[in-house]
């Protein structure tokens, strides 16, 4: 199993990697496929092992078991200095005694590039990251955003096959963050370098990545394009981590699914008997209270939260008369996001429509 490589041509494979720090398992049998030239994100809460995984890819940490392949070649035993992989550290780790130019030139000089080559390449990358005017400045004379660009230039100037970014936005303020995200994406596309980024910010991960891996407790829970992972989460953690959602305990009867809110039809009914469903707040449709039909629930508005672009509602569903005594499912409050400009007031009754295509069955144990 460990020696089998599914997809070999170009890219990074992580196979069955585990890592313990003392008695605590930080990574628990992790597998990952990163295609050459894509923007890949490791997403998860702090302590989920994502930074450790990044450090293993960088060669700054050895896995206890498992292997890392780059273009089909086992790079697990190679030290960081022998890998075509460079890192942008979370703290940036710029050399404080070297100015911008010298920091960026570090990797090339260490590999004994000729004087002209160093000057030419450093100049090109300083230009690319608009650092030309800051050549002579020392790290303590730079702002947070400038430091980050120096760290980026210092890594990219080596023209690595893979660039690793450890929480690159964590030290930037919200304003700058949005711009840097766009810049990073553009830079990645222009250079065609594989970027692997670690973040705990799900919005950032979704906006920027081609593929993302959601991690928790040392395991990769789901890998896929942001849209797939967001709309079709396979378990409750992924569903909740990627944004607001509704989780419904459910029992399947044939091709109908019974929840505390009532019976629902689903486009892809679950293969379990007891489990849970999820539906995003923006996928639930608000209708006039006299609407009628399948997948509809009558509910009273408890709270309205207006945020300009959207109107978030918290609703209390009407209690159901015929609860299964063997499986009493309490209906919870339902979160709905609408983009309507109609006034909806607290206390009002509305009908909620749960489209069969947006009800997603989760595959973890019933709650």
């Amino acid at each position, binding site marked *: 199993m460990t020696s089998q490589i599914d997809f070999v041509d170009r890219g990074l494979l992580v196979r069955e990697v585990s890592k313990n720090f003392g008695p605590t398992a930080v990574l628990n049998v992790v597998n990952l496929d990163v295609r050459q030239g894509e923007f890949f994100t490791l997403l998860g809460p702090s302590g989920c092992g994502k930074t450790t995984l990044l450090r293993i890819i960088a060669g*700054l940490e050895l896995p206890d078991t498992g292997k890392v392949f780059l273009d089909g070649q086992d790079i697990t035993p190679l030290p960081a200095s022998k890998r075509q992989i460079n890192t942008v550290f979370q703290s940036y*780790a710029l*050399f404080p*005694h070297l100015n911008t130019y010298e920091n960026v030139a*570090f*990797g090339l000089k*260490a*590999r004994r590039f000729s004087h002209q080559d160093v000057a030419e390449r450093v100049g090109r990358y300083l230009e690319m990251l608009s650092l030309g005017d800051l050549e002579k400045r020392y790290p303590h004379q730079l702002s947070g955003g400038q430091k980050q660009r120096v760290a980026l230039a210092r*890594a990219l100037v080596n023209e690595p096959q893979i660039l690793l970014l450890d929480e690159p936005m964590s030290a930037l303020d919200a304003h700058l963050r949005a711009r840097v995200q766009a810049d990073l994406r553009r830079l990645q596309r222009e250079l065609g370098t594989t970027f692997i980024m670690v973040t705990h910010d799900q919005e950032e991960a979704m906006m920027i990545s081609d593929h993302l891996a959601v991690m928790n407790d040392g395991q990769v829970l789901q890998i896929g394009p942001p849209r797939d992972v967001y709309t079709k989460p396979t378990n409750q953690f992924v569903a909740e981590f990627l944004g607001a959602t509704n989780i419904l305990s459910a029992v399947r009867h044939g091709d109908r699914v019974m929840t505390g809110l009532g019976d629902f039809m689903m486009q892809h009914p679950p293969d379990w008997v007891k489990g849970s469903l999820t539906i995003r707040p923006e996928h639930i449709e608000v209708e006039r209270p006299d609407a009628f039909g399948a997948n509809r629930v009558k509910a009273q508005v408890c709270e309205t939260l207006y945020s300009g672009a959207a109107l978030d509602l918290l609703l209390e569903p009407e209690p159901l008369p015929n609860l299964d005594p063997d499986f009493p499912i309490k209906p919870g409050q339902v979160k709905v996001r609408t983009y309507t400009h109609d006034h909806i007031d607290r206390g009002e009754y509305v009908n909620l429509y749960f489209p069969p295509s947006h009800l997603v069955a989760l595959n973890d144990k019933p709650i």
Partner: protein
Amino acid sequence: MASKKSDRISWRGDVTKPLRLRLRGLGLTLPPLVWLTLLMTIPCLTLVALAMATRGQYGDVIWQFTGNNFRRLIGYSFFGWSADNFYVLFRSLWMAAITTIICVALAYPLTFHVVTRPPRTRVFWLILIIIPFWTNVVVRTYAWLLVLGPNLPPARLAAFFGLIPEGAALYPGQFAVYLGMVSTFLPFMALPLYASVERLNWDLLEAARDLYASRFQVFTKAILPQTKPGLAVGIIVTFVPAMAMFVVTDILGGAKFMLIGNLIQQQFTQARNWPYGAALSLALMVMTLISMAIFRRRSGLRNLS
């Protein structure tokens, strides 16, 4: 309505008046200033005066101006010119430099070892480094005499490899002197360096490695620049007293190991020639100052120390 401009100022969270602030500063700096004047400047000036005085027939000091002490210092005597004093000075310089270099080479691994221990055992290691401070240098040096004595394991081992004759001791000689010097000065080097190594940003070591630096480059490019302040202090507090050391060389070096420290000590004791001793002391001070100036310029530490 124009109000009178307030003469109050805010200073580090205090609201006060400039005059009061100045008085407070003066009150705090005056005692150390007086101390330095009385116990440093005046004795130094006395030393200069003494160096230009004449030795009386019975070893007393006659306050009569003469340049003879300095003539003798640069090698002229009743018997003509000799380079002995320059040898002594150069040997002292060489000795202090070698001692300092060995201390640096030992202090880096030592401090890295201590810093990477868990906090509880770290205290134990620090105490091990500090313990030698609790004993007098003379006592410690005599202890080396016992350890290096004939027919004991260290001497036997050396004899086994044919380094010394059978039944001989490991002293007097260079080996014993450097052993004594390094063991005396290692804590002086290790403690300031420890303060720097403890605050080391290890990310920079990883960044250097990630950027293809060799192990040697990691030291020169990531560790050395970060630990420069501690290293500079360590070098100064090791080199300067090592220049003037006479106890260790006296006990472990035998008669052949004459250093400027020994020479000065002799003038003030056996030879009873205080003026010449004072001239030698001045020479030592000047040599030390010149060495430190060169060190600062060469190591780019002008804004430190």
